[in-house]
Each structure stands twice: as structure tokens, then as C-alpha cells.
């Protein structure tokens, strides 16, 4: 019987976000400040 299976199986691509993206997120997190006044939350980005 003919072999109809392909030898190579579809490989799952493993991707990782670039270090710059991670660094950006960490900097964003550091700069983000949430202030709450009278129950209303304000976001401020201290760059």
C-alpha cells in the first residue's frame, strides 16, 4: 500500500516578543500612575 503520510509534520512556530517590546512595556508600567479622586480614577503617564 502506498504511503500517503508526509514525512514532515507541521511544526508549531514558537514566537517570542522582541526584547524591545518587553522593555517598552516595563517602561510603560513604570511611568503609568493611577490617581483616584472622589472615586474617579485618573491615568497619568510620567515620561
Amino acid at each position, binding site marked *: 500500500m502506498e504511503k500517503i503520510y508526509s514525512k514532515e509534520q507541521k511544526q508549531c512556530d514558537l514566537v517570542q*516578543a522582541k526584547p524591545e517590546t518587553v522593555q517598552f512595556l516595563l517602561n*510603560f508600567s513604570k511611568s503609568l500612575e*493611577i490617581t483616584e479622586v472622589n472615586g474617579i480614577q485618573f491615568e497619568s503617564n510620567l515620561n
Partner: protein
Amino acid sequence: MPITKDYFFKIGRITHKTSLFKKRTLSLTKKVIVMEVQIEDPILITRYIAGDERALEALIDRHNQRISSFIYSKVNDRGITEDIFQDTFIKVIRTLKRGAYNEEGKFLPWVMRIAHNLIIDHFRKNRRMPMYQGSDSFNIFSVMGDDKLNIESQIIKDQIDTDLTFLIDELPADQREVLIMRIYKDMSFKEISENTGVSINTALGRMRYALINLRKVISENDIILTN
């Protein structure tokens, strides 16, 4: 201290002790590293909310590959994957900092859900505004144009407009009045006749003379008023 057998013996013992100390510290460090790895997500989240930024780094590093691969498996583009990954974590950071994170669910499934929603948003946005990429044989910009003038033509047009204003100022008052009303104020000859108190025919005649005079001045002075 004189260098004797005893001296070498002592040095040997010290070195031995130092190496023992080194070994112990090394094993301790290893233990600490192992402990670091084993810190669970909820503890890291609590630490992050308390202000420890390193906890977020640990969280991102831990889940980076899984989340990125998940996004990539859907969008199949590295750049878009980076964008969605970034937007996902921006949402995560905002929610955590606002104290709106619900401890009941697990962290990773929650982040995956955010990423999933952003992927759907991305496809929706793309369907509304599909992106056309030109190829060598066909470029969309060859059939599609921007009706705005480029900066050079705009400057020339402004120059012509200014020149024309000077020429119009040179016209006799009655002709100038009709021309301004017709061209700049976009009034009909009926409205012009009502406003100036002359008949429609007079207004038409003044407009005609205004144009004739303008043309005459332009040709006499060799003024070029074309773009």
C-alpha cells in the same frame, strides 16, 4: 610570618574553607534561583500591585512565548504579533494598576482572552479598512490619487490668488463690486442687482467689462496666471 611547612598547611586549610564556602553559597544561590522560578503567578501579581516592577518582568518573561505564539498562530505576521502582544500587556498593566484584576481566574487564561479579543478587533478593523499592498505589476496609487495640491502647486496657487486680488483692486469700483459679489461671495446676478440697486442687465454688463478689463491688464503686462 616565616614560610614554613606549617604556613603552607594553614594556607591549604584556608583555601579549602574558602572553596567550601563558595560551594555552599553556590548551592544557596541555586536554591534561590529555583525558588524564584517557582513563584506562582498570583504572588507575582500581588507583588506587582504592591509596586514591585520586577514581578511584571517575571510575568512577561514567563508567558511571553505562549502568548506570542498564540497570537502568531492567528495573525501569521510577526509585526502584528508584536503590536497585539504590546496592546495586550498594556491592557493587563492598566487593569492591574487600577486594582480591577479579579483574583478568581487564572492569570494566563485571562491574558489569553485579552489577546484573543484584540486579535478579533484587528481582523474586524482590517475588514473595514482592508490594506492594499502594491506589487510590481500593479500599484494602487497609479489609479488612486489624492485630490489635494502638492506643496509646490499650493504655493503657486496662493501666489496667483494674491496677484489676482491686486488686479481686481485696480478695477473701477462698480465693476469690482459686481465681480467680488459674483466670484468670491458666490451670489447670483439677481441677488447682486438687489444688493447694488441696479438692474440684472447692468450687473451682467459690469461683470463682462470687469472680465474684459482684467484680461486686458493681464495681457498688457504679460502676467501668467496659470498653474
